């Protein structure tokens, strides 16, 4: 599903990832941990095609991201869901419109869209705020809308970057269960987190990064 071969990514004056080789099978759930600035976000961004590696190859669904034409990237992205660390919700739109957007982009019929959006908003407990502007939501609420948007179109791959950083323990539990359920339906999940609770609850394969290096890679598909 996802394969990285000797991937290196430099930024001005800092190495975000160095010589990383990794293989994630279809239907796996992988946790990525590591201290602040270890390269977790960079890793996820590379898989999503939001950054390009300086060196090495990245295969996602058997396509080489580094060689993909820029016009093909949107279509690859439509098969993935992404929960960003800084949310990236459209600020002038309501919760509903934000979650609906990936469906509009895919050209889904209005009827189908309505059902799917409501479903995923309910799953993260944000259905009661569907008509609210996202810019006025609390941080935890924004994070949940983000998760709803990522899962609304049943993606083949779900990438989540610190998805519970602004959530209380109870919600963290529920959201983690949601990720587990999505994974159980066959979606490949990669989850960057600092949260011990999440790590314990998922209890699956865990990759540990430090300063852009792969430190440990424990456990496989449970």
């Amino acid at each position, binding site marked *: 599903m996802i394969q990285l071969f000797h991937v290196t990514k430099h930024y001005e004056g800092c190495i975000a990832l160095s010589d990383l080789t990794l293989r994630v099978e279809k239907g796996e759930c992988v946790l990525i941990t590591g201290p602040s600035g270890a390269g977790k976000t960079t890793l996820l961004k590379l898989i*999503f*095609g*939001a*950054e*390009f590696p300086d060196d090495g190859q990245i295969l996602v669904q058997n396509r080489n991201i580094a060689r993909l034409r*820029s*016009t093909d*990237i*949107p*279509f*690859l*992205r*439509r098969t*993935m869901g*992404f929960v*960003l660390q800084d949310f*990236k*919700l*459209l*600020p*002038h739109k309501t919760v509903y419109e934000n979650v609906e*957007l*990936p469906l*509009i*982009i*895919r*050209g*889904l*019929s*209005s009827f189908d*869209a309505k059902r799917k959006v409501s479903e995923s908003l309910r799953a993260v407990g944000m259905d009661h705020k569907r008509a609210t502007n996202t810019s006025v939501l609390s941080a935890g609420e924004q994070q949940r809308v983000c998760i709803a*948007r990522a899962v609304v179109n049943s993606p083949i791959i779900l990438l989540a970057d610190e998805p519970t950083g602004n959530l209380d323990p109870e919600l963290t539990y529920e959201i983690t269960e949601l990720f587990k359920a999505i994974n159980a339906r066959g979606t490949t999940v990669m989850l960057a987190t600092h949260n011990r609770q999440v790590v314990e609850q998922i209890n699956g394969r865990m990759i540990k990064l430090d300063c852009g290096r792969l430190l440990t890679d424990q456990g496989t598909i449970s």
Partner: protein
Amino acid sequence: MKRLMYLLREAMRGLRINRANTIIGIITTAFTIASFGVFLLLYHNVRTITGSLQDQIQVIIYLDDAITNQDKSALELALKKETHIESHTFLSKEEALQDFHQQFPEEAYLLEGIGDNPLPASFIVTIAPAPQASSHVSTLATQVKTLSGVEHVRYSQDWVERVTLFSSYLEIGALSVGIILSLASVTIISNTVRLAFLARREEIEILRLIGATGTFIAIPYLIEGAVLGALGGGLSLGLLRGGFEIVRDNIRDLSWVGGVQASINFFPIQMSVMLVMAGLILGCAGSALSVYGWMKIRT
């Protein structure tokens, strides 16, 4: 359907939300197109005026008071054979005197003291408008001068050349100004749209992350640019019309250029429509320029 609706709604939202930006865009576009329009209007009118002036290039052949009827018929025949001549009329001594009284009533006293009519009879020859009209005039003049019974031939060589020269000057001027201002328009609109763009940079980034194609992202901006440009073009038309009316009214009030006023005209309707269309196309082009330019930089 849903997608189309979304794109249209986005374009309208863009215009509404960035109202300041929209208004600036329209105003700058209007001003640019209007500055171009002023030249176009000037050119348009000078063309028609010089056109009608060139229609009236005249050679006046003054006849000897003692001309024989035979010489007169010979001269008339010669004029008829000349291909560059459009028409000719005969003005007798009496008609000339009447004309003089009519045209210069204040100077009429000049001729009062003199018993005899001092004005000669004449042929007034109108040259057919042609690119080389002025050279035809001078050859005709030298030919006719040699005929017997002709006292004097009058035509204004420089004046004809001057009009032709001015007309061609204006043509070059209008063309170059037109090109420069078109470029300026595209730049200004492109900058305006780029600003709208910068203001919504994050939105675009988010859309890309969700998997929107370049076209999907660009369309609302292109629509925005087109609407901006068209409104700017319309406004410039209004400005031009207003300015034109003021100028015309003043000219009429003062009746300084008496002969000219009748022929000052606004653009015909097709040209007006074309001006708005030009705004629309420039707006779209400006948008495209900045949208695609910007997208190229970003993944």
